[in-house]
């Protein structure tokens, strides 16, 4: 079920209340059942796939711990093969098969079509397979003891707040929490609810509002002039952040209400001063997963320079593929890989340029330029992430320079009618102004949050101030929310 749905509005308080009413020894079972109900609200039969991988990894974890020598590795390989294999079948089989068919046809090797599978991608597959692999790898590395309680292990994979879109947890962080007896804590509950509220605000007030423009423009880019394509790209840049971080906040908040601490997944990524920093602030659970289990396994940066560059590029290529079985995601990942390698290679030149121009002597200017350029690079890459196909993405990119002329046209004629968006449902000057205002508000909150804890500051205020803020937030969510049963973007992974 979606977090922004009526079903979750009923599900969450019932599950939480029962959780605190039940004795500790039954709570794992209650949460497991609740998580099964949560998952089964999508496509019930696919819960069997989840159970299959859970059983395999549970057994593999124990066998890895009990075995010695190379047998430990074989059990790890079994776990990885089952998880990656499940992902490969459901997510990548048709993609690779279509490409092989196209290649064979274009080379006139055969006219035969390798059959495709009629399968729907199980929701959250990419997330829970990575979380499951994280477990067996950590057991293998000796950083985590194998979980002997099957129910607790199943809950580790299926814990509903982070089941379908992360954060991708590490067993060291969360497994022990399921064993600990949690008590009702007033501040955990209220802080968790505030985090959920903030997440819901970002999702239904900002992200889904921005989607009213980005969806039609990205779905039919040829119908819009360059300036509109630029606007849609900028809006999508914030839409995907608000959508995904909003989900993460709701996940973290709902876990916190019950006393569980999940890892932070976003840290004001658009305030990054480099792409490297961006990936330490964006989808942190995924980027650290790739760093710890792929990048370091390939040798990381403790290899020759060319191999180091290859490792970086390859990891991001795989990351792109993780996001979706489509060339647009592969290109998006490759672009980020290229950004990182280029940043390293060009570092001496950029430092020299900064020194020569005097920018390095003006920290505020230097920082601003770094933040802006990182933002532009990330926004540019998002074009591939959102476009329906590579052709549309390249079309949009090709049109971008024309936005300058469109901007000059607007300045000279004071007319924006040619942007071709004003006939779209819900789109008006007020809409664009409101979207920009909401983005500025959100980034201002991030800037303030970097300097002090907003929650802690709010908790110190008198009751009437706190309740006024809470009512304002809830009323904004109710009255300004866009409710069209929009799924979270990352649900498609």
């Amino acid at each position: 079920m979606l977090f922004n749905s009526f079903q979750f509005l009923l599900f969450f308080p019932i599950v939480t209340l029962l959780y605190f009413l039940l004795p500790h020894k039954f709570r794992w079972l209650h949460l497991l059942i609740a998580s099964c109900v949560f998952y089964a609200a999508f496509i019930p039969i696919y819960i069997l796939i989840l159970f299959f991988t859970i059983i395999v990894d549970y057994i593999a974890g124990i066998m890895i711990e009990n075995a010695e020598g190379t047998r430990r590795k074989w059990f790890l390989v079994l776990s990885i093969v089952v998880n990656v294999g499940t992902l490969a079948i459901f997510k990548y089989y048709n993609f690779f098969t279509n490409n092989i068919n196209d290649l064979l046809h274009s080379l006139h090797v055969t006219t035969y079509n390798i059959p495709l599978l009629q399968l729907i991608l199980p929701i959250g597959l990419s997330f829970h397979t990575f979380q499951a692999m994280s477990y067996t790898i950590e057991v293998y590395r000796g950083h985590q003891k194998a979980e002997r309680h099957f129910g607790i292990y199943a809950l580790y994979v299926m814990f509903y707040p982070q089941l379908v879109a992360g954060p991708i947890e590490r067993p060291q962080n969360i497994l022990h929490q399921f064993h600990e007896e949690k008590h009702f804590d007033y501040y955990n509950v209220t802080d968790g609810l505030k985090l959920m509220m903030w997440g819901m605000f970002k999702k239904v007030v900002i992200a889904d509002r921005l989607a009213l423009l980005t969806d039609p423009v990205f779905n039919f880019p040829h119908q819009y002039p360059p300036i509109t394509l630029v606007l849609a790209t900028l809006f999508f840049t914030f839409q995907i952040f608000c959508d995904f971080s909003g989900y993460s906040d709701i996940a973290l908040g709902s876990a916190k209400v019950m006393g569980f601490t999940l890892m932070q997944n976003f840290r004001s990524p658009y305030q990054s001063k480099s792409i490297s920093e961006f990936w330490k602030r964006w989808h942190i659970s995924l980027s650290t997963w790739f760093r710890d289990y792929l990048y370091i396994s390939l040798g990381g940066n403790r290899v020759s320079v060319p191999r180091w560059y290859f490792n970086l590029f390859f990891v991001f290529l795989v990351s792109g593929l993780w996001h979706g079985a489509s060339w647009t995601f592969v290109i998006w990942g490759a672009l980020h890989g290229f950004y990182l390698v280029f940043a390293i290679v060009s570092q001496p030149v950029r430092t020299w340029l900064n020194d020569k121009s005097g920018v390095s002597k003006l920290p505020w200017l230097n920082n601003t330029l770094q933040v802006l350029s990182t933002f532009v690079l990330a926004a540019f890459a998002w074009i591939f992430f959102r476009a329906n196909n590579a052709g549309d993405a390249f079309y949009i990119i090709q049109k971008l320079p024309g936005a300058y002329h469109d901007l000059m046209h607007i300045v000279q004629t004071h007319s924006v009618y040619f942007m071709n968006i004003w006939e779209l449902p819900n789109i008006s000057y007020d809409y664009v102004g409101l979207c920009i205002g909401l983005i500025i508000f959100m980034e201002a909150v991030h800037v303030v949050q970097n300097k002090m804890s907003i929650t802690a500051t709010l908790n110190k205020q008198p009751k009437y101030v706190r309740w006024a803020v809470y009512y304002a937030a809830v009323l904004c969510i109710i009255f300004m929310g866009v409710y069209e049963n929009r799924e979270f973007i990352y649900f498609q992974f």
Partner: protein
Amino acid sequence: MLVFIRKLLLFLLPFVLLLALYAYLDPFKVIKHYDSYFAHDLPNYVYINKEHGTVENFKARYPQQQYDSYILGSSRSFNFRAADWRQYINSDKIYHFDASKESLFGVAGKLAFLQKRNSPIKHALIIVDATLLKQAENEKGHLFIKHPEISGESAISYYFEYVKAFFSFNFLYDYTIWKLTGKAGKTLDSKALHYDEITNELLQKSLEDELKKDSVGYYARRKNVFYTRKNAPIIANAVLQEKHKALLQQIKNILTEQHTDYKIIISPLYNQEQLNPADVACLQQIFGKEHISDFSGKNKITDYVGNYYEFSHYKPFVAAQVMAMAYGNGQYK
């Protein structure tokens, strides 16, 4: 925990009161049952989900009326009057089983609903166009979402759509102002409609009155609405895929089982887009050529602006003309 629950209940009290107010006012007429879901020759002000009114009115009146003949379709079918259809079928137990923004999903759902209730379907007149045929899933939003007894989907989600609609700022503001002052804002409907509860017919009274008063002025005021059409014929993109064909087959199976005498009319729309030949062929293959009458595309009906209220809906006399041809000679080109 009790302290928290007490504070939470206190915090939620205003929202609970608003919900209670919503239930009491029932602006969309979905909570309580009504003798008539639409005002008689007066504006409704609050837009009602026609589907909801159609289904609830049917359930209430069926025991007495024992309907056996149905006109199905979107708002474009509204103007196919029961009185006109009566002359072609030997029944006067006619019901307009229609909905605004009706879909293939909705038409199939309604016929399945009738069959499930063992309500005989002796005659059916199904008015389609590319927009209707294209939609094979439930609609979203309170105005067009299918009744749960038609869609088979969650009743909770259905009724929650109306709660969401009530709590939208624009609607709540306009509704409050209207309740207090009688002035209707943008989100309310001040056009009068003529409604007949027995047949569930809804006709455009305000527009007809305006036309009777000043037909020249009517079209002059709507120059922007009646956009200039191209001279060259336009063929719509094909819309029928496997999921649509499955629904069409479902409709056919029900009509066959019920031994229904039926006609499917493809509307003559102002856009002059001819239903794609592949789609027409599909309909003919499933239902038989004798049941399909295609009035889409560029023809004498669609050429004449005076046949339309605006770019989407043709008038009752056009519907009567089209029916005559469908039950008589068939195609009009």
